[in-house]
């Protein structure tokens, strides 16, 4: 009888107090402050950029992003200041996307080779080399692109143009093929391949061994196992690696500065010898900028900052969506 009466009273859930011991408390503070620091830094950088460039956005509005002119005024009113970054913004995306399209198949192929086909000893050597390649400064890639790759790139461009000239992207107006978005994109691709390969290989290596074994046990080939298990399992890692590479390509300065003709005109013909990139624009103009131009450059930096942030958030969303099916 007692038991029946008891069950009628539904208790309020108790509050559970968590007591951390000393070591935990200290460690907790350290890691919390670490996490907060990066967040605060990011916020401060964004705020700095925004405050410094507010005047530009106020003066020029949306035309700062859509216009295609970068003229420093003469100061006496004869030539007036006119700053906008349209072609640089599209150029940034164009070069980065070219780089990514070239780099992804190479990186995924390389990662699969390293993880599933390479003999053990070769794998070890190649992994070490890959990490080394990821650490090479982009200036070196730029110089290599200028001194070595450009001549190949030009020949490839001629070939592409003669075979696929009917495609709008590949058509050119003047048959000068050097210093084009295509060549810059190729060099950027070689720059980002190591990091993407490294990230995707790491993810591929975490594919559960028994799933791969199951594919083999069902009479599947290595490629069958890769297609059935490894690629679906590694999808989020592939996207993550791609976004890491894209982020690097978007912000790349020196290599693009060395390899691309910066021309303030919208250009989507990838073999044409003109293009642009926000980061290299800033590097080019920074040295002799007037005070107002400096603000415009900071504003350009702010746009790049937002672009990279947006790409990363998009990546995070895609990764989250593609890992739902478990």
């Amino acid at each position, binding site marked *: 009888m007692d038991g029946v009466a008891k069950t009628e009273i539904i208790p309020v859930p108790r509050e559970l107090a968590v007591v951390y011991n000393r070591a935990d408390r200290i460690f907790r503070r350290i890691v919390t402050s670490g996490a907060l620091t990066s967040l605060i830094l990011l916020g401060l950088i964004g705020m700095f950029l925004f405050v410094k460039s507010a005047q530009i956005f106020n003066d020029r509005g949306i035309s700062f992003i859509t216009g295609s002119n970068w003229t420093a005024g003469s100061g006496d009113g004869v030539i007036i200041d006119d700053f906008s970054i349209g072609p640089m913004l599209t150029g940034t995306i164009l070069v980065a996307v070219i780089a990514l399209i070239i780099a992804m198949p190479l990186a995924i192929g390389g990662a699969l080779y390293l993880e599933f086909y390479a003999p053990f000893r070769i794998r070890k050597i190649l992994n070490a080399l890959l990490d080394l390649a990821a650490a090479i400064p982009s200036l070196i890639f730029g110089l290599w692109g200028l001194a070595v790759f450009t001549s190949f790139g030009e020949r490839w461009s001629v070939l592409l143009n003669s075979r696929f000239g009917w495609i709008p992207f590949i058509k050119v107006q003047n048959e000068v093929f050097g210093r084009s978005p295509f060549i810059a994109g190729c060099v950027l691709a070689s720059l980002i391949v190591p990091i993407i390969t490294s990230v995707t290989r790491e993810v591929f290596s975490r594919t559960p061994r028994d799933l791969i074994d199951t594919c083999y*046990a*069902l009479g599947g080939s290595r490629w*069958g196992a890769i297609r059935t298990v490894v690629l679906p399992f590694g999808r989020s890692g592939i996207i993550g690696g791609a976004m890491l590479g894209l982020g690097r390509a978007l912000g790349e300065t020196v290599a693009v500065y060395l390899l691309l003709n910066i021309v303030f005109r919208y250009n989507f013909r990838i073999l044409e010898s003109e293009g642009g990139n926000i980061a290299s624009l800033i590097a080019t103009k920074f040295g002799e900028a007037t005070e107002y131009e400096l603000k415009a450059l900071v504003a350009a930096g702010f746009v790049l900052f937002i672009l990279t942030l947006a790409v990363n958030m998009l990546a995070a969303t895609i990764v989250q969506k593609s890992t739902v099916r478990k």
Partner: protein
Amino acid sequence: MKTLKQGEIAMVENPQINVVTMVEAHSPQSNFRGLEAKNIHAWFGKHHVLSDVSLRFPERTVTGLIGPSGCGKSTFIRLLNRMHEFIPSAAMAGQVLKDGEDIYAPEIDAATVRLKIGMVFQKPNPFPAMNIRENVLSGIKLAHLKVADHDSIVENCLTRAGLWKEVKDRLNATGGSLSGGQQQRLCIARSLAVEPNVLLMDEPCSALDPGSTLRIEETIKELAEKIAVVIVTHNMQQAARVSDFCAFFLTDGGPGYLVEAAPTKILFTNPSDVRTADYVQGKFG
């Protein structure tokens, strides 16, 4: 009782094996149907892990492999369908004959071997990106087999694995939505879809609850009406319940070896080796 290393000899010398079984299991090689391991050795690098194992797995029988951990049972079973060679530095010696044909012969394609000698693993592992139906058909896709009627294969395999009634209304659900035991039966159905003649099972029930284990054991018995089943198990009662023949492996710190192999009843009630008797009575292991 003297130490025996080869299952065949143990079985021949054991007077209590009935003659019919002996003839069936040890008919001349030319018309022996099933799987036969001859003088198998295995190494990982320089480490000798398995020494001189010979065993026969006739069609329509269940053979249980028992023994303490680290005695080479799993290595041995992986040798039977050429999964062993995926481990870097793994090496082997001896022969594995399927219906009299050496599966390690140079001209044999290992993938074709595995198609006919299927395997179910310890942990239930349906492919996570696929639904139940796709999981069952995955082997057919992997091996590029041409089949006319996918639906009847799905139904047939799930029925043989004892899962059809439970999942027939939700074939589009992911494998992960099933319980552990159901997942393992799905894995069995997946192995059956490519129509193997031999099914190797590496502790298929060790991650499951007793109820699911019982269901799987029933499934195994039904499967053995058509094919040969080889099952590694740590569970002595399971070996006693489900197998027709039993092989006992042991290691003395060196490579694992076969102590004796016999019809299950004899191995459990009247083994020829004292270590087998100790093990099956739970005195060690």
